[in-house]
């Protein structure tokens, strides 16, 4: 996002805080992919993801006065989405992730250039603990660095790095079916 775009979105945020619907619409459209994708990959089903996305944006609408920039809004949305998703997952003793056979429609044809990869990835994500899943998604979907992830999830930086390292090792082990190799060049050690 360049400076002009950031400034424009900051102005739209100010307008949305004054109750301008067009500005609020633009903010929702700008951030809905991020929120929806986090919710979908955290919770595993489209219905739950849509419900959570709507809850998060409704909450955002009531908290616009406390948000001072579009960057802050992005941080706030990621934080609320991941925290709510982790809470939902923890409330359930065992989360029933959508079986692969039912996941055909999980990703649209436009987005899923490799549906098999997406389905396999979703299955691997489902095996991670909710916090580890959130860390991985914030790192690779949202492209946040470990420090930003630590701030978003309010967890120690070393815990974030540990989640990243162990999650990637676990996923690679399950993917290639070999013993986890030591990550000598891991950036998270």
């Amino acid at each position, binding site marked *: 996002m360049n400076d002009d775009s950031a400034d424009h979105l900051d102005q739209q945020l100010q307008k949305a805080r004054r109750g301008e*619907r067009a500005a*609020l619409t633009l903010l*929702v*459209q700008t951030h809905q*992919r991020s929120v929806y994708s986090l919710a979908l990959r955290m919770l595993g089903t489209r219905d739950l993801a849509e419900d959570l*996305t*709507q809850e998060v944006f409704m909450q955002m609408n009531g908290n616009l006065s406390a948000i001072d920039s579009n960057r802050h809004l992005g941080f706030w949305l990621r934080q609320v989405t991941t925290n709510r998703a982790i809470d939902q997952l923890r409330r359930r003793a065992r989360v029933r992730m959508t079986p692969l056979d039912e996941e055909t429609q999980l990703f649209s044809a436009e987005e899923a250039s490799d549906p098999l990869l*997406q389905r396999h990835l979703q299955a691997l994500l489902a095996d991670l603990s909710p916090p580890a899943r959130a860390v991985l998604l914030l790192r690779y979907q949202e492209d946040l660095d470990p420090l930003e992830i630590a701030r978003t999830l309010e967890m120690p930086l070393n815990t974030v790095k540990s989640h990243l390292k162990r999650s990637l090792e676990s996923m690679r082990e399950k993917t290639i079916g070999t013993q986890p190799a030591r990550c000598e060049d891991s950036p998270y050690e």
Partner: protein
Amino acid sequence: MSKDIESEMRAALRPLAPSEEFSQKLVANVTGRHPAPLEPRRLAPRRRSLAWWLSASLAASVVLVVGVHQHLEQQRLQQSGLEARREVLQALRVTSQKLNLAFEAVKSQSTSLTDDQSGA
């Protein structure tokens, strides 16, 4: 962990767009373009209030009718009681008068009898 794997992860986990239908519904709900219908719970207090007032009015009417009826009945009984007392008093008065007459009669007879005995 090689950088290639991280790049592949980023590519595989890029954000996904929700369906167009959901996106439109989301915008409409968040911006309030489709105001949600009033929930029954919001109407409930008014309905309860109206029902309460109707019940209260009905109860008050019943109480009023019963009260008036009882008052009239009490007045009727009181009136009939007064009438009965008046009749009793009248009867007592008549009786008393008759007794007095009888007493006077007995007294006069007794006086004349005494005079007769003293004259003899």
